[in-house]
């Protein structure tokens, strides 16, 4: 009964997320992708209302990157989680004026809360579509860490570039990020985001509807 209820809640949350993404962000760039170029290493750090994330990934194949993921969760249930993570490019559409991707991020390791530790596993998918002007993404995520955490979470980004910058110029993006955490106090959190990137350095900042500062950065080397 409990499993059925959880399954129905997840289905409902996914449906709400998809509907919101479609309704709010009717399509025609730019969450950092979980893969870089072959031989490239990517360091990524995120600080938002859900916690602090640090990851380091090495792309060893056009379709795969392997790395380490760690997160200190502060959203209601405080705990620390870390372990290796495999990022996979499941499908890419290279179009003359755009690109679409579906990635998966699969990891496992340990979660720790106080003096209590549990094995942990997490899985998320990232679907994105970008042109030089527009960017859309949707990411559902499931985390299981025994009696420390069992959660489903989803995130959508939509935005545009106010000007079209060339390769060696500063690129600026204005976006809206919507997070949906069914199990948390603030189910929906909306964050206006400004994003800059210059070649391999990427920085974004925002202020969420539940009054949290968001600062994320990514560096490829």
């Amino acid at each position, binding site marked *: 009964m409990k499993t059925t209820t959880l399954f129905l809640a997840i289905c409902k949350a996914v449906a709400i997320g998809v509907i919101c993404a479609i309704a709010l962000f009717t399509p025609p760039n730019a969450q950092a992708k979980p893969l870089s170029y072959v031989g490239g290493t990517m360091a990524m750090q995120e600080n938002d209302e859900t916690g602090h994330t640090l990851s380091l990934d090495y792309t060893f194949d056009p379709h795969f990157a392997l790395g380490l993921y760690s997160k200190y969760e502060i959203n209601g249930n405080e705990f620390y989680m870390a372990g290796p993570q495999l990022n996979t490019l499941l499908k*890419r559409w290279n179009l003359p004026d755009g690109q679409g991707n579906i990635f998966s991020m699969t990891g496992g390791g340990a979660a720790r809360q106080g003096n209590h530790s549990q094995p942990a596993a997490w899985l998320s998918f990232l679907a994105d579509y970008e042109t030089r002007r527009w960017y859309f993404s949707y990411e559902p995520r499931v985390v299981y860490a025994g009696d420390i955490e069992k959660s489903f979470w989803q995130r959508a980004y939509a935005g545009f570039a106010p000007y079209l910058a*060339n*390769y060696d110029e500063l690129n600026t993006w204005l976006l809206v990020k919507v997070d949906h955490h069914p199990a948390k106090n603030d189910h929906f959190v909306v964050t206006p985001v400004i994003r800059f990137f*210059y070649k391999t350095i990427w920085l974004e900042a925002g202020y969420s509807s539940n009054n949290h500062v968001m600062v994320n950065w990514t560096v490829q080397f």
Partner: protein
Amino acid sequence: MRHIVITLAILAGLSGSAFAETIKTTVNGMVCAFCATGIEKTFRKQPEVESVHVDLPKKLVTVKTKPGKTLPDSKIKEIVTYSGYTMGRIVREK
């Protein structure tokens, strides 16, 4: 006078084979600077390559080879595909 003409002709022939080549290729899917870095870095690693220039608005990558060197179409396609993109048309200029 005849010797001078022959010498100049030989020199011209030799230098002709030592010209650098400029190769331009359009790349489908190359829509952001963050993504184009992989293509630029992979081309730069090739021993035949002198310089690489990325033009995002035109989705164009221009590769200049070292004098006397070239990159076959198959190699260019391999690099673009390996970087995660799809190659378009190739134009070569001596």
